[in-house]
């Protein structure tokens, strides 16, 4: 199982690298679809069918929106010669990556080996959850019963994002 997921994540990394370096913006957007749809397969392998259903539709809608933005604009990204600012940002990126690598190396040792055990929190959510919530789908039970506050907060963020989009797009720009 770990090997299969590793291969798919490797493909996702290749797709991400191509999406970042592609010259045509349309092919960059479509290459970013590799990452999203690869994530769907990972979710299916990791026994998370709820997430797979959401992710496959969300990825499609994201691609439609991105293509609609990119389609009738200048799609060629102009790669000019690297200047001082470009070097500075590249050096910053390398420095940040080294620092984050160090911290991840420390923190990954605190995690259990992949697939051996779940978090301690899983026990109370699985034991007797069906009697408490009456729901056969444990994820729905957690989303709307044990963690109802979270869901209400996320729904509020969704409303706020929609209001933000409407505000940005309805402004009459100064001529």
């Amino acid at each position, binding site marked *: 199982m770990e090997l299969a997921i590793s291969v798919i994540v490797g493909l996702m990394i290749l797709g991400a690298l191509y999406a970042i370096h592609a010259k045509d913006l349309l092919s960059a957007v479509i290459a970013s679809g590799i990452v999203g749809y690869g994530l769907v397969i990972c979710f299916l392998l990791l026994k998370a069918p709820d997430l797979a259903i959401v992710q496959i539709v969300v990825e499609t*809608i994201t691609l439609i929106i991105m293509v609609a933005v990119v389609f009738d604009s200048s799609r060629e990204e102009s790669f000019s010669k690297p200047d001082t600012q470009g070097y500075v940002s590249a050096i910053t990126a390398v420095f940040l990556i080294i620092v984050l690598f160090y911290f991840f190396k420390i923190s990954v040792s605190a995690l259990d080996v992949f697939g051996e055990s779940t978090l301690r929190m899983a026990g109370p959510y699985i034991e007797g959850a069906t009697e408490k919530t009456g*729901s*056969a*789908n444990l994820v729905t*039970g957690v*989303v*709307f019963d044990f963690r109802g506050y979270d869901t*209400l907060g996320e729904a509020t963020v969704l409303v706020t*994002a929609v209001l933000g989009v409407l505000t940005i*797009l309805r402004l009459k720009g100064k001529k």
Partner: protein
Amino acid sequence: MKGMTLIVKKTTQLIAGMVFMYGIYIIVHGHLTPGGGFAGGVVIAGSFILLILAFGSDFLNLVKEESGSTLYENLAILVVLFLAVSGLLFGTRVFFLNWFPKGTVGQLVSAGMLPLYNIFVGIEVAASILTIFLALIIFKEEISE
């Protein structure tokens, strides 16, 4: 935005209804099978987006639809909030209390208030994503005119 050809339109007419029904199935069975309000809402929004892409804006009055979907979105989040507050009236008086009778596990009508939350969150998610899409389409049309 112009619509597509006749074949695409007819095929979309056939498919969009089924996609819509699939979204409703996912929402209503959210407490029994994989799925729920978030998944089903996104699927329902996808069926509407399919129709809009195929038929174009000559057929549909987009501005009117956008105001309608904004209204549905806000009403749905209000109902979810009222359902959550209603837990304060009964029993141990906890926010988000599941005070409906639970029923037997595995039946369609069971799990207390979870199906109600599923339905209204589904409406909210579907209306939100449809509103975002319509806002982008209307903006593009206004610019190109």
